[in-house]
């Protein structure tokens, strides 16, 4: 997988989280995973279809997810309920929207599926064929991993 696909997602994650949450956000070292990825507690998954295809996954601990959605709602949410899910989905939309705009400026044409949320322990995402690049982002609310598995069609 080409690294240039992941950069727009990392850049937009960093900038959206800084702007929307107003917290410290720092990008860590990129790593490569070819096997199934165990997800943390909450994962937002966006699919891409078109000239570039695959998926992007934003993965985090429940504690981190709850801090993020509480901040966005300006009220403390203690359960990962419907409002919390809708809120983290919106964050996913904002990040993806900005990344997609960058990628289409680079000349890639594709559609994005609406974000889907997965939550729970001991879950695994396995992508046959496509290897995944992972960029952890360290924030004052905890770590968010951006896991991108995309390929050119």
């Amino acid at each position, binding site marked *: 997988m080409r690294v240039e696909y992941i950069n727009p997602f990392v850049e937009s994650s960093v900038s959206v989280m800084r702007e929307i949450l107003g917290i410290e956000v720092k990008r860590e070292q990129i790593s490569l995973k070819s096997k199934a990825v165990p997800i943390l507690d909450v994962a937002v998954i966006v699919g891409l279809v078109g000239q570039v295809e695959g998926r992007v996954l934003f993965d985090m601990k429940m504690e981190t997810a709850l801090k993020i959605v509480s901040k966005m709602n300006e009220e403390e949410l203690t359960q990962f309920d419907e*409002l919390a899910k*809708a809120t983290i989905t919106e964050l996913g939309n*904002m990040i993806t*929207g900005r990344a997609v705009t960058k990628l289409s400026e680079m000349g890639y044409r594709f559609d994005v599926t609406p974000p889907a949320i997965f939550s729970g322990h001991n879950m695994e995402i396995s992508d046959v064929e496509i290897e995944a690049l992972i960029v952890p982002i360290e924030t004052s609310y905890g770590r968010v991993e951006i896991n991108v598995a995309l390929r050119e069609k």
Partner: protein
Amino acid sequence: MGEKMPIGDKGDGASFRVLIIDDSVFVVKQLTQILQSEKFDVIDTANDGEQGVEKYKELHPNIDLVTLDITMPKLDGISTLERIMEFDKDAKVIIISALGKEDLVKKALITGARNYIVKPLDREKVLSRIESVLKK
């Protein structure tokens, strides 16, 4: 000088009546808070397109504005807009879209949407777009 009149005030003490069609409870909550802070009357909300069309038909003509999400399950924003415009060609619909959906927004404007707002929702931006739609 006197205070500025809230944007949601029609001028005769009554409020502009808004229907919010959006599948995200987060966006519905945000929009409701912004609108109510300017004295708009959020008369109803629908969390999918089909329900949105039904509610519009029920409320018509006692409704002034619709905010319509472009990506929704069941019936998407464009099809919802088509049905609303078919029923009421004077409907005032404003599109709420994520970034990166420029083609859909263009299509919505051609179909009859009066304006659009790109998320994240910024209070000033939301109110100025809505105000310009209501003033026309």
